[in-house]
């Protein structure tokens, strides 16, 4: 079984700060991580490989520095890694990204047939959840998003059964391979890599592909040129004009504070008083 996992290196957004004066993002020194949602998909892929044999190939489209994220995936137990890197990919939106990744997967499939593709549910920087469905459409694969559990895979028959989260319940879906899966967060837990994998990752030479290597003959479908969306403006959320009305607490018991708060609340919003506790 050959599984391709798409991962993305993202800035650890918990550590991003906005410059208070210039309103620009202060990226310096912000560490990068593997998009956390991608790890649930990588782990699921590794489990399937362990069960059925075969290999897991990890790919990413990004700058050279993303090699670090790919090597991390090798240390978790992935077999191979390809970095898709080229000037023509700069400025890609989700449509252009899915084009580049789908082309790469099709190219990989020419030499090593691909049975499944895994993507993260979404990224924490782009945060769109569009790239996975985009790849599936382009490759003509069935897409299974928000999967909580892979119930069954029958490699001989080329069938898969999954539990997919939907609004208000879980759909049990059966479909054919090859297909694209995005895993729900919390559906599994990333393993600790073995010592062997750790050593292998340290020595591993990540393969680098430019657009030609990925079989892309229409570079105008990549990067800024291939992106229908245009970012016009980036700005910090405007501060709220009216400050909170603070309830005095000095020398008061909690009960007195509570009553003062409720008096203030219901004086300003009398309708609320009639609506609570119903």
């Amino acid at each position, binding site marked *: 079984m050959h599984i391709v996992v798409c991962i993305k290196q993202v800035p650890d*957004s918990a550590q991003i700060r906005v410059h208070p004066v210039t309103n620009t993002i202060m990226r310096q020194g912000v560490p990068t991580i593997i998009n956390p949602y991608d790890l649930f998909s990588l782990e699921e892929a590794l489990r399937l490989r362990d069960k059925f044999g075969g290999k897991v190939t990890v790919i990413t489209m990004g700058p050279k520095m993303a090699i670090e994220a790919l090597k991390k995936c090798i240390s978790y137990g992935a077999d191979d890694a390809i970095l898709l890197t080229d000037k023509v990919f700069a400025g890609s939106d989700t*449509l252009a990204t899915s084009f580049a990744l789908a082309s790469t997967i099709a190219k990989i499939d020419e030499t090593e047939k691909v049975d499944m593709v895994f993507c993260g549910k979404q990224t924490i920087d782009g945060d769109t*959840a569009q790239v996975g469905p985009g790849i599936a459409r382009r490759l003509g694969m069935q897409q299974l998003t*928000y999967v909580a559990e892979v119930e069954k895979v029958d490699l001989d028959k080329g069938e898969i059964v999954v539990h997919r989260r939907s*609004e208000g*319940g879980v759909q*049990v879906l059966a479909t054919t391979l090859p297909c694209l899966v995005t895993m729900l967060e919390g559906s599994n837990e990333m393993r600790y890599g073995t010592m062997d994998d750790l050593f292998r990752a340290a020595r591993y030479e990540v393969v680098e592909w430019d657009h030609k290597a990925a079989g892309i003959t229409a570079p105008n479908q990549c990067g800024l040129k291939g992106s229908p969306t245009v*970012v016009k*403006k980036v700005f910090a959320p405007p501060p709220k004009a009216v400050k909170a009305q603070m309830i005095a607490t000095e020398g008061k018991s*909690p009960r007195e504070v509570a009553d003062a708060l409720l008096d203030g609340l219901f004086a300003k919003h009398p309708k609320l008083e009639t609506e609570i506790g119903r």
Partner: protein
Amino acid sequence: MSAEDIDQEQSTPVASAPRRADGADLSVYHGVWVFIELERGKVHPVSWELLGEGRKLATHLGVPVSGVVLGPDAPETLAACDGAFEYGADSVYLMRNAVLADYRTDPYTAGLTDLVQTFKPEIMLLGATTLGRDLAGALATTLATGLTADCTELRIDDETRSLAATRPTFGGSLLCTIHTLEYRPQMATVRPRVMAMPERVPGKRGQVIEHASKVAEADIVTKILSFIPDSDAEKAQLAYADIVVAGGRGLGKPENFKLVQDLAAVLGGDYGGSRPVTHAGWIAADRQIGQTGKTIRPKLYIAAGISGAIQHRVGVEGADVIIAINNDPNAPIFDFATFGVVGDALQILPALTEALRERLAARKAAE
């Protein structure tokens, strides 16, 4: 009100549709469409919220707003059309077929692609639900057009007659405005509760334009084996609760969360928490409020022991009244709260519960 708000409300004439660099005429694309999300016989309320928003965009552009309903040949499907009219649609595009009974990517994508290519709307809005996100990503790819996810504000840029879609970026620390200039339709998704629910006009009707689906069950690869509905306990109606009480890491330990639940119970509301609290398992994951959790729009929101980080703030800003209880006078939550109490949540919460209980008892005695 800012100058921009006023501008949005007047229906000033806007520029005609742009022509693409390659000469393609985009003006054949006309009207605003809202995908009406019908699943298992029920319409997701986000569809009505989007009709309210679609109506504003359509008025500004001087075009109609339409609902798009896909579903089986069943009374619920027609009820969804009626609902669309009552929440503001001028017309409804309808596609009925047994294969559309439950959501699956293929028949829905094929159906919507067909509808869009036949009737050519300039804007297409969908809810950012599990269904809407699955569908929007597939649809934007088949239509080869731009899609902006999780928008928090939609308006029309008069200069280019294009949709200016604003969304949080970089983990919510910043906002960005995105345009799709040369491709149509311009697609956007919006999360439930981000936009206000429009007024319903009972009995309002309009024109239904029915279009046949060309998909047959035999063409569909993915089969639904079964559906396991969530138990009631899991069906947190948090997003749609009128009153919400939430607790954060400031509560100290899981046992203290009961103080939040007690207050919510007295108020007749629901409860939730910040991300650290759901991640630590103090309460269920689907009760997380904020950018990566639920967006809420209650009449009253009470936050206890929550700092008010931007990722939390974006999920609660739509509340009418926000009460913040935090022992740090400099906590960012006081920057956007309506009322603030600087104090120990472990003392203020039970005092509030007690004071309310007494007031409610007095109200009951008087009624």
